[in-house]
């Protein structure tokens, strides 16, 4: 999207002016740095040339992605791995519109990111200027809030508020659109202070009366079940949450984004709920008489058909966003607040419980179909076996990002997530291409941790260009392509619900090993079971990005599966599966 513009002027160096007078571009950098952000992801272009003029002299490390959408996804990966606000930059017009999918992804998964977009110079706004789009209009439904800055003196306060909005309350994406002439204009830089707004006061401390009502419900329940959503992780409340679960002895299930709210290997962790959830988790939902939801929004992929969802349960719903209460599921006891604050008050109120009979019943719902099927394995490596080997090799300590599709569900089922901030997947929006750029962002945010990304051969072909970014930044990222030559999840639906009419799902691809090498990364191909673990260990030992092309059974399906529109109790159990 690089385009030059005759009005471009090099922002003047500070020596020409007093030390406090800065350009809008310099103030933008200072304001971002003031939020504790050291890494930004972006792509330059005409309207942001003045901003890019200021970046080298700032304290910001800029990561050049190969497409603006992946800047956004990298910012998401960074935010989710670190718990800090991710920041991305794009130019006006196509640069800005390319961010839209990332903003929508962050909106649906409540991820704190701030996007800075350039805009055409103010006299051109509304006149269809070159690379002009109404990005604040376009992103209205996919941002928590957005701004256009019309005065250079407003940049610092706007960015301050943007970061605050992104991370406070229910986190989400915020966009700040800055016209090029505002980047160039100068003013005295005064570090901004946050001015509270009457209209934005998120409730973090819950109403104690509601907390006691919740505790009463928990005391009376015979078959209580806790479900954990992304809110537990966003609140940084994993330890407090585990404490509550352990004190009450209540079995706990997870949404896709709630995996890691506590260690999945914990004896009270039952597994994932929903469309591709573990059998035990969905069976427990059917039988429970009390469902305590911490920070999940009852997404349809988690609940299945609402009429059959937790049919015998009263519901306690803890959420920081009051609009989530009663939106999808009728709630007996709502508790509005930050999960960590709620747990601080709730855990002392609950009594230590013994639910051993209930837990034994749940354990009995384990799927036993697999073992026999395993004896009759095809020659191809099984996708879930690869996932298990990665988890085993890394001791469940690595950050794992995924793309979207079958491999994502296999990973969710079989990884065994230990830490919430090390499981990064696109849940709400289900954005293909998410895997590699989010791994780039995660590695930038947590260089101290091993980073893996598990991707399908379809998704990799959407964002595979980010290999160049990973090579340019010399990032230790291990890429596991689960290569079945199909857009596997769609193929699975066609297999199960459309009479095997495999319409446009067979997908060819390049030689991924050669491709990796062409980018300056390392490529490894795996075709047999025996090669899986050595390839994983080799990847872990090599510096820089390593791609492993796992060629797997083309028509393996993900089971269990709840058909779209069906209740969670109606699981298709499949031939080969394991919990």
């Amino acid at each position: 999207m690089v385009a030059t513009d005759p009005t471009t002027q090099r922002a003047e160096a500070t020596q020409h002016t007093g030390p406090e007078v800065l350009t809008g571009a310099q103030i933008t950098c200072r304001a971002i740095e003031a939020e504790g952000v050291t890494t930004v992801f972006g792509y330059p272009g005409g309207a942001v040339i003045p901003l890019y003029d200021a970046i080298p002299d700032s304290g910001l490390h800029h990561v050049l992605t190969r497409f603006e959408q992946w800047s956004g996804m990298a910012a998401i990966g960074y935010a989710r791995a670190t718990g800090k606000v991710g920041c991305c930059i794009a130019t006006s017009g196509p640069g800005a519109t390319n961010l839209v999918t990332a903003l929508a992804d962050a909106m649906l998964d409540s991820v704190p990111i701030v996007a800075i977009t350039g805009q055409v110079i103010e006299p051109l706004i509304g006149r269809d200027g070159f690379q002009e789009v109404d990005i604040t209009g376009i992103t209205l439904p996919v941002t928590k809030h957005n701004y256009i800055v019309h005065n250079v003196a407003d940049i610092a306060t706007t960015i301050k508020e943007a970061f605050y909005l992104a991370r406070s309350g229910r986190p989400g994406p915020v966009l700040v659109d800055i016209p090029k002439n505002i980047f160039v204009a100068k003013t005295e830089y005064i570090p901004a202070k946050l001015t509270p707004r009457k209209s934005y006061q998120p409730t973090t401390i819950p109403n104690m009366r509601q907390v006691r009502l919740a505790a009463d419900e928990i005391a009376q329940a015979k078959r209580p079940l806790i479900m954990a959503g992304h809110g537990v992780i966003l609140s940084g409340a994993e330890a407090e949450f585990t404490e509550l679960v352990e004190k009450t002895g209540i079995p706990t299930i997870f949404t896709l984004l709630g995996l890691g709210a506590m260690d999945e290997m914990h004896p009270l962790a039952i597994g994932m709920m929903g469309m591709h959830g573990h059998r035990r988790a969905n069976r427990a939902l059917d039988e429970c008489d009390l469902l305590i939801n911490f920070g999940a929004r009852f997404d349809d992929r988690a609940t299945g058909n609402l009429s059959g969802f937790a049919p015998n349960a009263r519901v306690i719903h803890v959420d920081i966003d009051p609009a989530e209460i009663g939106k999808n599921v009728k709630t007996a006891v709502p508790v509005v607040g930050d999960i960590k604050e709620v747990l601080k008050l709730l855990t002392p109120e609950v009594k230590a419980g013994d639910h051993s009979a209930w837990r034994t019943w749940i354990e009995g719902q384990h799927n036993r179909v697999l073992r026999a099927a395993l004896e009759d394995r095809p020659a191809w490596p099984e996708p879930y076996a690869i996932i298990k080997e990665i988890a085993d090799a890394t001791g469940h300590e690595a950050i794992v990002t995924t793309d979207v599709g079958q491999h994502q569900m296999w990973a969710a089922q079989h990884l065994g997530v230990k830490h919430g901030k090390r499981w990064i997947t696109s849940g709400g929006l289900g954005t293909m291409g998410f895997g590699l750029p989010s791994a780039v962002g995660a590695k930038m945010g947590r260089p101290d941790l091993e980073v893996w990304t598990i991707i399908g051969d379809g998704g990799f072909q959407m964002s595979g260009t980010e290999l160049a970014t990973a090579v340019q930044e010399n990032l230790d990222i291990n890429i596991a392509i689960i290569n079945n030559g199909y857009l596997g999840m769609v193929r699975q639906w066609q297999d199960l619900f459309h009479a095997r009419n495999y319409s446009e799902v067979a997908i060819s691809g390049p030689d991924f090993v050669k491709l990796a090498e062409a980018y300056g990364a390392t490529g490894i191909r795996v075709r047999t079971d025996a090669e899986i673990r050595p390839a994983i260990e080799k990847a872990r030992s090599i510096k820089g990005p390593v791609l492993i092309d796992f060629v797997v059974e083309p028509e393996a399906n993900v089971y269990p599966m709840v058909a779209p529109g069906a209740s969670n109790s109606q699981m298709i159990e499949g031939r080969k599966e394991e919990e």
Partner: protein
Amino acid sequence: MESTHTLVLLVEDHPGVLNRVVSLMRRRSFNIDSITVGHSEQVGVSRMTIQLRGNSEDIEQAGKQLYKLLEVVKVIDLQPNEAMIRELVLVKVAAKGAVRAEVVQTASIYGARVLDATPSSVMIEMSGGEEEIESFLTMMRIYGIREMVRSGKVALPRVLSKKTDRQTRQMNPLAAD
């Protein structure tokens, strides 16, 4: 049960606020019957009156979603018996010759005001509640309505503003909490 509700919104007077409110209502599939915007008694605060149809859960959800907009300061679900809900209508009615006097006389029954006249029509201004306006328009249709505009509803609670929060239902941003 589905019914018509009147929501009053106090919003920060910023460019684009109306767009944010309307865009939210559209994308969440709430049915707006009428919407008006104007200044309130406070500087920097605009007042919107939105009529929409829905059951009580829909309306509660609408209120909660509206609260999520940064510029929305307060949402009030006005109860019809506790508020004056009014609308202005301008109507151009065919009124030639002898009929003219009859039209003007009918209008005066409703306390409507004649604003303008041409050889073939009169323009009448009428304000009132929903029922009055509908009744007036029924009469005017007899003569033939050539052109019409309705302002959309505006509403104020009857009681003093200090008691407003108690007397009418200020939608609680904390849900059923």
